[in-house]
């Protein structure tokens, strides 16, 4: 049985010590990944709330948001849409073994479609390129959203060895312990078996699910990072001296610690609240998921900024990586420029948002 305590303990002991090195060397440690991955069965064995708890514990223990993103991509972002919309054959083929799925994080976050789809006799032909494919180099299959001539979109699940599909490893600056790739599709032929959900129906099926999953579940590891930063900041304030007096005597430092604790408590509550909606009957409201994600972005920035002030010029290994990786987290397509219009649109009753 998975427990957050066990995951945190394992992650701390197996992964934390090597996190900085793996990050520096962009090292993908498959046995470590397997030891720390979480079940992909939320809605079944685990609830969504529990799954978020495990992802947070994984990041908190490991100090490794990249590894946690890899786990999130595999266990949640790729598998949950398959579980929800997959045919029995697709579920049989992709969910029964431990093979990994890859997914472009641009496709979960409101970016314009970059893959075109046209029908042919044998099924469909896909062309285009996908950037920022998490787990790309390790994936056996990919979830891909393609756009038809009429502007409608269809979701596909493509085997990595599909002819015409080319994968190239890329090295983004952040989240370096997660393998990243770019997928190019050159007139890539797939049969109708590859369609996930309804033809032309992605905008009402896979897309909103992916978006909500991304907003909620990629936030979960950041709760773990926030907690790790809070722990480190507390230790800093306990031990550091400024002006010959313990930093713990400084009212400003005490206020900063209190605010970090408050941000973490608020973030944890919102995450639970948003995740719990996946355990309910319907898809979570975009507004709630986006609101949680928007809050996370601001909490992550605030806590890192504050922890950095407390740490002083030495900084810390965790702080530096979190600082860098948070840029990706808070400014990616799922950043404020997408989230704010979504939330405001829902408030104002625009664009069919709720």
């Amino acid at each position, binding site marked *: 049985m998975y427990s957050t305590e066990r995951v945190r303990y394992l992650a701390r002991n197996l992964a934390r010590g090597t996190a900085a090195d793996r990050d520096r060397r962009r090292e993908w440690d498959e046995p470590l990944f397997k030891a720390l991955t979480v079940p992909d069965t939320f809605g079944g064995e685990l609830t969504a709330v529990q799954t978020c708890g495990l992802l947070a514990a994984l990041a908190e223990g490991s100090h490794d948001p990249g590894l946690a993103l890899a786990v999130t991509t595999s266990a949640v972002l790729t598998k949950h849409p398959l579980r929800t919309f997959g045919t029995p054959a697709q579920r049989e083929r992709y969910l029964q073994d431990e093979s990994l799925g890859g997914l472009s994080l641009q496709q979960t976050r409101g970016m314009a479609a970059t893959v075109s789809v046209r029908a042919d006799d044998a099924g469909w032909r896909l062309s285009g390129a996908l950037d920022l494919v998490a787990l790309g180099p390790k994936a056996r299959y990919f979830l891909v959203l393609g756009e038809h001539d009429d502007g409608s979109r269809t979701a596909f699940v493509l085997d990595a060895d599909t002819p015409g599909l080319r994968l190239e490893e890329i090295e983004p600056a952040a989240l370096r312990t997660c393998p990243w790739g770019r997928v190019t599709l050159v007139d890539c032929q797939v049969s109708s078996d590859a369609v996930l959900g309804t033809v032309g129906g992605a905008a009402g099926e896979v897309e909103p699910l992916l978006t909500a999953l991304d907003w909620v579940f990629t936030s979960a590891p950041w709760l773990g990072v926030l907690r790790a930063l809070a722990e480190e900041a507390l230790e800093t304030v306990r031990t550091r001296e400024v002006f010959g007096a313990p930093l713990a*005597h400084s009212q400003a430092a*005490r206020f900063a610690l*209190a*605010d970090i604790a408050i941000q973490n408590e608020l973030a944890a509550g*919102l995450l639970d609240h948003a995740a719990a909606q996946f355990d309910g009957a319907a898809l979570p409201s975009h507004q709630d998921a986006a609101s*949680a994600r928007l809050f996370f972005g*601001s909490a992550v920035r605030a806590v890192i900024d504050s922890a950095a002030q407390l740490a002083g010029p030495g900084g810390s290994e965790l702080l530096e990586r979190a600082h860098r990786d948070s840029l990706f987290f808070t400014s990616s397509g799922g950043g404020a420029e997408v989230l*704010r219009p979504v939330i405001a649109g829902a408030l*104002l009753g625009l664009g069919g948002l709720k």
Partner: protein
Amino acid sequence: MTTTFAGIASRATQTDATASVPVENWQELKESGYFGLFHPEHLGGSGADAATQVQAMEALGRACSGTYWTATVSALLCGNLIATYGDERHHHLVRALATGEKLAAFAIVETAAGSDASTYQTLVRRTGGGYTITGEKSRITNAPRADIAVTLARRERAAGDDGPEWCLAFVELDQPGVRRYEIPHMGLRAMPWGGIVYTDAHVDEANVIPVPFTELAEGMTWGWLLVSIAAVATAESALAASVRHASERVSFGRPLAHMEGVHAQLADSRAQIDAARVLALRAATERVAGNSAKDLIGMLKVYATEMAVEVTQRAVQIHGAFGVTEGHEVERHYRDAQMNVVGAFATNRLREQLAENLGLGPAVYRPFDWLTPSAAPESPPKATITTTPSWWIPYAGY
């Protein structure tokens, strides 16, 4: 209870302008059963669960924040203080608050320069037929209109009395030894606020309850909770007004509703209010279940009250000149929001307390002296560890 207190809401502008809660509001509150939500049936209430309490509080706060403060300080805060520290002899008092028959104030802060209790002078003395109380409390919610004041006072202890130095005295205010005055204030104008001067006022023997100083903190967290929910309600009202305004207003053929700058303001407010409300419900649930939840409620008070100031400020920006015109609800929310920050415990005092509970030890005072920073490790700074518990720093009264 699903009322939105429509009558109270319809009178909110007027209530603010006249700086007085109209009698119709009291009637509506009594009929709604609001006062009873916070108390079990045997004390005259309906024993509502946490979610119902929070929902009703937010609804009343949205309808009229001044009315909310007045009603909730009495029924929730004072009612719980009396129920917690009193006994069967005080059940009639709780019942009177739980039904709205009586109004109570929580009288702590005094006029002395210091805001710490060590400077407080109000004293309870034994006389022939009970006790008398003398002293002045100031900046107290409901003071000008309350029937009864839950009053923090020192006890004159006879030789051999080893009981606590402090007591709560439940003092009837309609008696010759009591004089009261009002203090005009920026926001929450309808909320009566002011001072109580006791001059040998009478207190029944049963109504003087010796209480160890440190224990009061628990009871007072009800106050932080009520302030926090006031803040969430004010923020939500300001956001709702902003959404309405943005939907109606067109500037240069560009509806405000379609401007990303406005989206950003609305979305940030939405996310922040959500975060506070989720925490409020968690904290209230813990609290109603009988747990302390002091840190959780302290965190909530800090965040929710400062958040509401930010949200009401955005609302003023979205409304432009309308938002600073008297009589516009946003102008009122803006003034109200700041009251919650300084009301009850000031937020920075709560931060101190939270830090202490994170394991940093009590606040340490070292006189500032920048020019001799290089204290060697063997000569530690002459720090003074404050002896008064750091939770006890009510900046403004309830």
